[in-house]
């Protein structure tokens, strides 16, 4: 059952068009990985789904209702949360206060401060530390925890592994099964094709604003993905 469906979505910034007639279905309870080169339109697609970028009417449906044109705070209230690229934490707040801002939408659900600390025990020890003093990996944990605090049905993660050491990335990806187990749907934007295929139920590839490949990863050979990623 499709939780979020995108139909013929074309958006851009002013005269500069980024996405062309995108069709996408994210099934409830699944993990989707989105791959694609820089500038392919991955972040733009996430911005359109979260309402940060205005999308044409009827182009995006979430849980059966059209959400294009809805303001971001209302979309968060419906159950869409984003872990933005580059984390975008609040530097003058502590770890715990960053998490509490995530609960601003007051959506009920399984995720509480306690559950986030259970998921990322490293954060419990540093809950009162200014968020800037944390390591990059811990900051990424705060960003994910902050998004979970809104108890989303759909969690969008933009480049969570960017700039992190492989061992740290591993510890972050370890959290995804627990998040999926709560029934949360996950969409991860990932540059590393190997990691994307390993974690995801379905994989989508964007290239120059168009979907070039979509489906369960085992359907595709390495050559298919390379072609979809780079073009022929």
């Amino acid at each position, binding site marked *: 059952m499709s939780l979020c469906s995108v139909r013929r979505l074309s958006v851009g910034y002013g005269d500069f068009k980024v996405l062309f007639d995108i069709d996408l279905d994210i099934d409830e309870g699944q993990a989707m990985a989105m791959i694609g080169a820089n500038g392919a339109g991955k972040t733009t697609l996430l911005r359109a789904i*979260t309402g*940060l970028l205005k999308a044409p009417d009827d182009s995006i449906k979430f849980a059966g209702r059209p959400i294009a044109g809805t*303001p*971001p*705070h209302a979309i*968060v*209230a419906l159950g869409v*949360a*984003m872990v*933005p690229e580059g984390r*975008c*934490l*609040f*530097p*003058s*707040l*502590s770890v*715990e*206060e960053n998490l*509490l*801002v*995530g609960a*601003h*939408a007051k959506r009920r659900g399984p995720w509480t*401060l306690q559950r986030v600390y259970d998921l990322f025990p490293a954060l419990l*020890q*540093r809950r*009162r*530390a*200014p968020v800037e*003093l944390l390591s990059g990996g811990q900051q990424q944990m705060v960003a994910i925890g*902050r*998004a979970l605090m*809104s108890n989303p049905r759909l969690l969008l993660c933009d480049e969570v592994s960017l700039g992190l050491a492989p061992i740290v990335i591993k510890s972050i990806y370890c959290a995804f099964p627990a998040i999926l187990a709560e029934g949360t749907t996950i969409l991860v934007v990932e540059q590393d094709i190997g990691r994307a295929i390993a974690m995801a139920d379905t994989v989508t590839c964007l290239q120059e604003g168009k979907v070039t490949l979509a489906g369960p990863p085992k359907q595709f050979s390495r050559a298919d993905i390379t072609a979809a990623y780079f073009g022929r």
Partner: protein
Amino acid sequence: MSLLELENASRLQHGVWIAAAALLAVLILAPWWADDSDLRSIAEFAYLVAIAQMWNLLAGYGGLISVGQQVFIGIGGYTLLILSLDAGISPFLCIPVAGVVSALFAVPIAAVVFRLQGPYFAIGTWVVADVFRLALDNVPAIGGGSGKSLTSALMSIPGWQREATTYWIALGLGVGLTIGVYLILRSRLGLAMTAVRDSVPASESLGVRVGRTKLLIYVASALGLGMAGALIYLTKLRVSPDAAFSMDWTVLMIFIVVIGGIGTVEGPIVGTAVFFFLRAMLADFGPWYLVILGSVAVVVMLKARRGIWGWVAGRFNFHVFPTRRRIRVNSLRSGFAEMPPSPRYLTE
């Protein structure tokens, strides 16, 4: 050792709170022990703290740098003038009403100036204030450009009662708005405000309504300034457009907040004390007074960008109002800075 330092800090904090309460009690009794000129000085101190707190809330926490906040002082002053002279309402009662009127004006003003960003926002607010000044210049019914005296509205009130009540209201505004800012900052709105100031896209994508949060701060600031404006003109006894909508009010607020420490609740109090001290010391220097005042501001901005209180708080780990969420206590175990626990209501 780390625990000991934490205890010392909070014991010192308790001491300051007790001293402040004792000082407040002494100040409440001032009409019985101080003479008229002392009373007026303390009242002026209190209302300067009040208006500086309002600018601090807006700029230091909300990130909205306005140079047109005098518009709300003026609206407060003119509300007092019209309601007490023409409608015959008690001037003291006019003060809360002036706050409400000012807050109501803030909504359409925000609708205009919030379309502008950064420096354009600052200039826009200034233009709005000047539009009000020029408009009131042309309303003869309330005195036009030369303004109108309030004396006739106050004549029926006995002298001592008038002076004492004015004083208490001023004191109440100074203390009340300081506590108000502190409480706002510890609330859910305060957390949202700080988040918006730190990163608009991140707070937006987490469900914080950025526009509404900014509007609430702006209206809250207008409410305080409107009350303060009415009170100020109750002490000055004459309202004219050039004085009430003067840029000087905002310059004073900015000076006090920048010197004292922007983004701290203590800053405006320290800044007002510094301003009073400099004004008394430099009273005989004529125009040099402003040159020296300006130089002090420049030096503070270059050498201590967080103002005097920002420097004290950073150096000695001390906060009277721990809202900056940055108390740093040396902890042996972790070896890095820690913060005080969040208040319980936030974690519930």
